């Protein structure tokens, strides 16, 4: 069976700087997979290569077995690839509902309609509200995003991605910058995500990684150092040297 998401020999260089070096990676369907690595390991670059924000220098990206390397972002989204951003990338001056509805409307194929009012799009509105309710922020639907506390903005970040009904979801540091009190809510949200979505999480917070992930890939200087279960990774000497070693020394 083909993986939900797969890369073969994925490379990306900016001039002499190689930020992704022959990455072979498989994300199985329904996976809870974490990508970790020290700062500057190329984690976010890897995500951008997967989504199509960046074009690889060489190598292929396969989504559900289909080669999507040549596809732009919108094409990959239509094939079930959703993402969140490490730094909030929201429609700040719009309502929480609109933030989610914009993506939902694209998926429903009604976002290009220019004659009938948006507020008449019942299905889009209801689905967006339902999603907000699932993440526990339905009460904020009418508020402007920039008036929300940061932790809730991070939930909106996840809600937008879920609105795309992805089969593969890339979470780029979902709890980044959130005080630990609020990060519990984000963890709960992550735990409640549908089982059939394949999730790749990029995270610095090791507690979160070991609690959430069932498989871990370690990326160092654009290369895959190793991959395994959380236990294997925790026991791996090389990982301790390049990564955990710095923290536990």
């Amino acid at each position, binding site marked *: 069976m083909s993986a939900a998401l797969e890369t073969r020999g994925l490379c990306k260089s900016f001039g002499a700087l190689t930020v992704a070096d022959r990455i072979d990676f498989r994300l199985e369907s329904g996976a809870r997979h974490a990508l970790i690595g020290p700062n500057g390991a190329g984690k976010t670059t890897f995500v951008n290569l997967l989504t199509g924000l960046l074009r690889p220098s060489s190598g292929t990206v396969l989504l559900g077995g289909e080669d999507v390397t040549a596809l732009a972002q*919108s094409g990959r989204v239509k094939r079930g690839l959703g993402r969140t951003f490490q730094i909030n990338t929201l429609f700040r001056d719009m309502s929480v509902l609109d933030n989610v509805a*914009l993506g939902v*409307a694209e998926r429903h194929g009604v976002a290009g309609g220019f004659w009938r009012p948006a507020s008449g799009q019942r299905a889009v509105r209801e689905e967006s509200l339902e999603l907000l309710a699932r993440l526990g922020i339905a009460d904020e639907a009418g508020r402007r995003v920039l008036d929300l506390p940061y932790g809730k903005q991070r939930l909106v970040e996840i809600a937008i991605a879920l609105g795309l009904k992805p089969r593969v979801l890339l979470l780029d540091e979902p709890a980044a910058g959130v005080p630990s009190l609020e990060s519990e809510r984000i963890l709960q949200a992550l735990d409640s995500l549908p089982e059939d979505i394949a999730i790749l999480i990029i995270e610095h917070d090791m507690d979160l990684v070991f609690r959430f992930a069932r498989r871990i890939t370690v990326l160092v200087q654009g290369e895959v150092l190793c991959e395994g279960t959380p236990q294997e990774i925790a026991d791996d000497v090389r990982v301790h040297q390049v990564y955990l070693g710095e923290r536990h020394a």
Partner: protein
Amino acid sequence: MNHPVGYNADHRLRWTEWLPWVVALAVFFLLPDYLSLGARVLTYILFALSLDLILGYAGIITLGHAAFFGLGAYVTGILSAKLGVNDPLLQMLCSACAAGLLGLATGALVLRTHGLTQLMLTLAVAAVCLEVANKATPVTGGADGLSGVTVAPILGLFRFDMYGRTAYLWCLVLVFGGWWLIRRLIYSPFGAALTGIRENSVRMHAVGAPVYKRLLTVYTLSAAIAGIAGALLTQTNQFVGLNVLGFEPSGELLVMLILGGVGRLYGAFVGPLVFLIAQDFLARQFPEYWYFGIGLMLVVVVLFARGGILGISDAVIARMRRKA
């Protein structure tokens, strides 16, 4: 009110939205001496509406919107003065199509860029259009302009009279049509998507929106509306000069819209009204220094009222509500 658009918005007409039309009709009946100034204001309102659509809603920065306005003006002028096509509707249609095509062609390039590059490219497009009109003397009249424009009665029924009554109402009808179209558009899912692109184009890409296609669509539409405004100017003045093209009218339009308030739909009504009346008044009182007055107004608005005149009125109303 700053109009919130999108899936939460109430798209029904508020009573305040009828005010511009009541005022416009009142001017027609009560101030017959000012109809030519009124037609000019209406023309610029339509032009400013087209700019607000791309600048205020889609976030496309431009200093070259006069390229489309000017092209529309020249197409109508050339049709009448050189080719003898005097039907106002046909002139209007040709102007809209020509400006729309230019919008599509230049937009295909301009909209691939952002920020300052985009600004410079729009400026370049307008400068090229100005130079073409300047050099193509046999067709455009060059620096002398194009006179001898005649306009046949609208639908064969309504003759353009010397008091400017028909011209005024003709402008009013087209502004109403343009407003209606643009208003529907900004409350639609398409309008919400444009606002999304303005707010965060990176995220719009990430939710699968065809960002470039959306921008090109709205840019073309806006260009066509600007072309109609240009045609109106020619029809009501029966003359076209180089002053409809280039940086200066583009910049002036931007000043009008900023004065009124960007991204509010009705800023495009208030801005040209205040600007052109001030210009008319100041040019008569202080023929040499009138630009000083305009400049002063702009400085005050930009320093103290980023939302323009409508932004000020919003703030005043909000304060009164709080006290009440």
